[in-house]
């Protein structure tokens, strides 16, 4: 079997309903082996449901899922996939070591416990009671749980929730280290900056559907174009330029959203030579995300 050629994750026409609510709606997604993919979406967009289906915890209502070419339950059983679950309760009364030993015993081909403790930076937490850990420490333990089975595919559901800035940075160093070994990583996060810097591909999920898919920079570009700032001309004059979709007065001048910033800039300089303080900036992924999903708040 040539593992490299089989996509790490294949999701084909998958739908999942809970009563009236359609959590995941006809999703198609293929993740090549070794990719780091960020799944963006508001709460309830279907990220966690999709992850649970990838893990074989929840069965899709329709469609097919393959992990490493296998059915999700089989993939879990063989240790191909591991996960940091957002709401995966751990045993609060137990020590970290005791719980990890339990999970360790269930895995098909686990890593040695001490190695996992070292990689996930939980060596100093091993004899602590899980119920007494801080949010950030808990996330480290969850990361250790995800690494236990030495999986090829790792799902991270809101991995850095509850971490302070420094812990988060340190945590990402560790995840990158794990990713470098050729593992496929699917990451769900609220922190758009995290998605932008850590993932080579971003998939935006909204009300169960994929509404954007591509590198973060591409999504940002395709959605909202660039932002033009200029001092001098009036908002109405800027709005009349080719390539400008809308323009509003800003603190100092005019802020315009462009569909074609090159055309807008050429026309601006030709027609308004007095224009100054010109600034063209790409919108952030956050801008793009908000615009993409703004239908959801109405």
């Amino acid at each position, binding site marked *: 079997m040539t593992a490299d050629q089989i996509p790490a994750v294949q999701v084909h026409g998958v739908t999942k309903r809970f009563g009236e609510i359609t959590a995941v709606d006809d999703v198609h997604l293929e993740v090549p082996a070794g990719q780091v993919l960020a799944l963006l979406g508001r709460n309830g967009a279907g990220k966690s449901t999709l992850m649970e289906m990838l893990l074989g915890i929840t069965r899709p209502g329709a469609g097919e899922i393959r992990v490493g070419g296998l059915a999700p339950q089989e993939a879990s059983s063989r240790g191909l996939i591991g996960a940091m*679950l957002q709401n*995966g309760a751990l045993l609060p009364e137990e020590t970290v070591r005791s719980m990890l*030993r339990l999970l360790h015993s269930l895995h098909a081909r686990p890593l040695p416990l001490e190695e996992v403790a070292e990689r996930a930076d939980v060596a100093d937490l091993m004899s602590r009671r899980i119920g007494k850990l801080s949010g950030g420490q808990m996330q480290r333990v969850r990361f250790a749980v995800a690494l236990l089975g030495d999986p090829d595919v790792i799902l991270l559901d809101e991995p850095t929730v509850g971490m302070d800035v420094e812990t988060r940075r340190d945590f990402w160093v560790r995840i990158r280290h794990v990713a470098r070994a050729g593992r496929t990583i699917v990451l769900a996060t609220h922190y758009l900056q995290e998605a932008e810097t850590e993932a080579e591909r971003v998939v935006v999920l909204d009300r169960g559907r994929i509404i954007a898919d591509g590198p973060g920079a591409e999504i940002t570009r395709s959605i909202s174009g660039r932002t033009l700032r200029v001092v001098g001309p009036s908002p109405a004059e800027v709005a009349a330029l080719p390539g400008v979709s809308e323009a509003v007065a800003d603190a100092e001048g005019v802020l315009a959203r462009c569909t074609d910033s090159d055309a807008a800039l050429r026309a601006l300089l030709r027609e308004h030579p007095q224009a100054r303080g010109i600034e063209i900036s790409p919108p952030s992924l956050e801008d793009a995300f908000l615009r993409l999903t703004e239908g959801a708040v109405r």
Partner: protein
Amino acid sequence: MTSRAAAYAYHSIRITLHQVPFVVFTIALPVGMYLLFSMMFGDMGEGAARAGIMVNMAAYGGLGAAVTAGAQIQEDLRTGFLRQLMVAGLTPRGFLIGSLAAASAIVLPALVAVFLTGAVTGVDATPGRMIAAIGVLWAGLLPAILIGLVLGMFLRGSAASAGSVVVMMLMAIAGGLWMPLEMFPGWMQSLGQGLPTFWMSRWGAWALGGPQAPAIGLLVVGIWVAALALTVLLGMRRSRGGSRR
């Protein structure tokens, strides 16, 4: 039993036996009550009462362990720890089998402790009969484990532990473990004969060399097991579809 279910059972037992309050509660309490009752009433019937008290108190101790263990299984289901176990490769079926095996194992210390205490305080029975009686009680505790499981489905957290104590007490008292059923009014005697606890006590006493117990007891226990097992399976199927997001 698959090797994963066995591994899960082993670690569940390890974790439960590390919980000091659990061990004290399930062992010390029935042993203490056996000592108390056998001191008070043990010499009645030329010492024959002592054996009955031993059987009943062992059944009571096992009952507590069984109901608690059953409720604990539900706790793991509810908190989502099962999802963690499933990612590690344990199937829901393996979880159920492993959990039941673990629950069956952790009721044993209570039974053995009371019987050992009985043996050193003058209960007159051969080791073979003692072991047979432990075996009977052990098998009779399956409904109690399932009751714990079912209770945990309907009650949460502290309500579940309070509920299991109440149910356990009711089953112990109404089943005649603390006082002979003959002391109760007629309707309570009829009720008691529909409980598995009553028949555990009867069959346990028979295994120790007492009078033959009627076979209808097996039917009663069987009906309890079937009804409870069905409820557990339906409940599990319902919760399988079940994460809310």
